[in-house]
């Protein structure tokens, strides 16, 4: 009963609002509906929060500049609290109830994958903001993603290790979706590259001390460097424990902690560690010839001016997601699902915050491992290593 009431009230409000809009500007076309479900609260809120802020901010900005195809954008977003079942329900709501034209969202791999069967069936273009390689490998017709895959991160890290002459490494990873998938890719890539993982430890998202696991790694024979794959506060605790134990081996983190808040949490302990990240963290260190420099600088200054908080790589995924959606709709000349999908698949040379996207029917991510830069923490700040 409540529901019917709500719906009636909603309809009434919609009609009333529509009336108002109609009287204001008679030709105003129907808005383009961008749907989004993000982990704005819950354990993955450090992903969803900047993502939502980015979407809100740029949807407003695009609307101020006249919209897309002469139509305004309308952002419809829900918070999945990091729960895959909620994500699926909200994806269902976006597709079937709100009837959105395109979905940009899915902060975590679990949330994304839970929505994929629905999206594929309903044939709605979907740009995911989550990392794991399974999202776009094998290619799913309607699913795209903007972050580099965790496999690329593993490749980038292990390449850097190999360049420095390390062939035996210790691995510690979180048991959450990001860490577990990252661990799997690292083990896989290491085999291909001839690097031996001599210690393999894990910690759960709720752990408050990883000294025991790190002690095991330190005491393993022949270990030359250590990699931590995980996100959230866990890697910051690992970093501090690493320093407390006085482990002198070179230390790597994944792109999961590529944000200034990580530096704040880990403090001095982070000194000297390396990680792969988008150039967003070091916008001014890029050479002027780098086409990404302007994009990254703009995004950073606009975001920080609007929200009064530090920009993070994760918000950048949402930026690229939204811009790719807009580009595709413009190229398609309509919001026809099939046409937009087709256009998305053929985007070439779009320079975003995360990297240069070259989509193709075989690659719905469009980035390569080189889009990751290796950064090192020096004097409490990020430094670009090349």
């Amino acid at each position, binding site marked *: 009963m409540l529901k019917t009431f709500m719906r009636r009230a909603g309809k009434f409000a919609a009609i009333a609002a529509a009336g108002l809009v109609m009287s204001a500007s008679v030709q105003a076309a129907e808005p383009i509906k961008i749907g989004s479900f993000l982990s704005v*609260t*819950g*354990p993955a*809120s*450090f992903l969803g*929060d900047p993502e939502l802020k980015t979407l809100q901010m740029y949807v407003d900005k695009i609307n101020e500049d006249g919209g897309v195809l002469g139509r305004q954008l309308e952002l419809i977003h829900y918070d999945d609290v990091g729960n895959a079942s909620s994500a699926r329900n909200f994806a269902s709501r976006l597709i079937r109830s709100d009837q959105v034209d395109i979905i940009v969202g899915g902060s975590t791999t679990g949330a994304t994958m839970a929505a994929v069967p629905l999206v594929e069936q309903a044939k709605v273009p979907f740009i995911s903001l989550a990392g794991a390689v399974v999202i776009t490998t094998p290619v799913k017709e309607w699913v795209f993603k903007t972050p580099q895959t965790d496999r690329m991160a593993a490749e980038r890290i292990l390449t850097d290790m190999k360049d420095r002459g390390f062939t035996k490494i210790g691995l510690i990873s979180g*048991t959450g979706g990001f860490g577990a998938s990252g661990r799997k890719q690292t083990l896989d890539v290491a085999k291909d590259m001839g690097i031996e993982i001599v210690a393999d*430890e*894990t*910690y*759960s*998202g*709720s752990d*408050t*001390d990883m*000294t*025991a*696991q790190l*002690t*095991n790694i330190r*005491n393993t024979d022949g270990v030359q460097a250590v990699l931590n794959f995980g996100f959230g*506060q866990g890697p*910051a*605790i690992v970093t501090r424990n690493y320093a*407390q*134990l*006085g482990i002198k081996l070179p230390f790597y983190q994944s792109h999961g902690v590529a944000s200034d*808040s990580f530096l*704040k*949490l880990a*403090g001095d302990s982070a000194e000297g560690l390396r990680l792969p990240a988008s150039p967003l963290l070091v916008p001014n260190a890029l050479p002027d010839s780098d086409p990404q420099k302007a994009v990254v600088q703009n995004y950073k200054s606009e975001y920080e001016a609007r929200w009064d908080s530090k920009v993070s790589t994760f918000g950048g995924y949402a930026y690229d997601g939204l811009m790719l959606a807009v580009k595709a709709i413009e190229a398609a000349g309509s919001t026809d699902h099939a046409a937009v999908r087709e256009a998305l698949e053929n985007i070439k040379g779009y320079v975003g915050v995360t990297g240069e996207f070259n989509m193709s029917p075989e690659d719905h991510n469009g980035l390569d491992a080189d889009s990751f830069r290796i950064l090192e923490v020096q004097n409490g700040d990020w430094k670009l290593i090349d």
Partner: protein
Amino acid sequence: MLSEFLQYLFTGITIGATYALIALGFTLIYNASHVINFAQGEFLMIGGMTTVSLTAMGVPMLLAIILAVLLAGVFGILLQRFAIAPAKQADVVTLIIITIGASIFIRGLAQLVWGKEYHVMPNFSSDEPIRIFGAVLNSQSLWVLGIGAVLVVALVLFFTRTLIGKAILATSMNKEAARLVGIRTQLVLMLAFMVSALLGSIAGVVVAPITFTSYDIGIMLGLKGFVAAAIGGLGSGVGAVVGGLLLGVVEAMTAGYISSDYKDAVAFSMILVVLFFMPRGLFGAKVVERV
């Protein structure tokens, strides 16, 4: 070999002491009302987060800690007055659901006030870790252990030496009899919630430099505290302390010697082992059932 073992032991005892304090909080309220207070972890969060935000505003650390602990105490009283007391006709299970509602509510408020980020709290004393036989001990661990020990002693004195403490004990043993001898049981219940909140928030403050703190830190630590209380036999103070330390040490030893993947599973199976073989918990009180 020795250094490894010591390292795991230090890690385990530190976190175990925190679990023990949380478990004591559970035990207090459980004894006074048979309610499992699922908002226990939120007291921890209030302690840590208030201290962090007050120090950020320039309040000296010690004062910030005192204010934070007092604030948590107030929340404990409010929780009892406005959520538990009005529903006194309710089933124990209903009261438990009320505490779940309360914890979601408090966490929601905290998220509105303080945001979602994790925050750093500096160590109380030096950042320099202490080295013993090749193992490393965080100086903050000593604070955790020391303050934990002081609190336990204070609690023992409170329950054996003060009238209020004795009244709480009496009420937990037999509510009707206590009422007959003139103890105001609602007041006692309120005190139990307050003391439990004080304990929780102090735990939250001392452990924050090790674990960081955030609006949702109470979920995981609160749960582990409950597990510790269950291992020790819900309702026993000694059990809560031993259960907490044991849980911490077993977690660290499992992570070190067996498998970090399954260390939490080992912790939870301890509950089953204790229930199967020592049904009253390690130190569970002998319950005489009244007919």
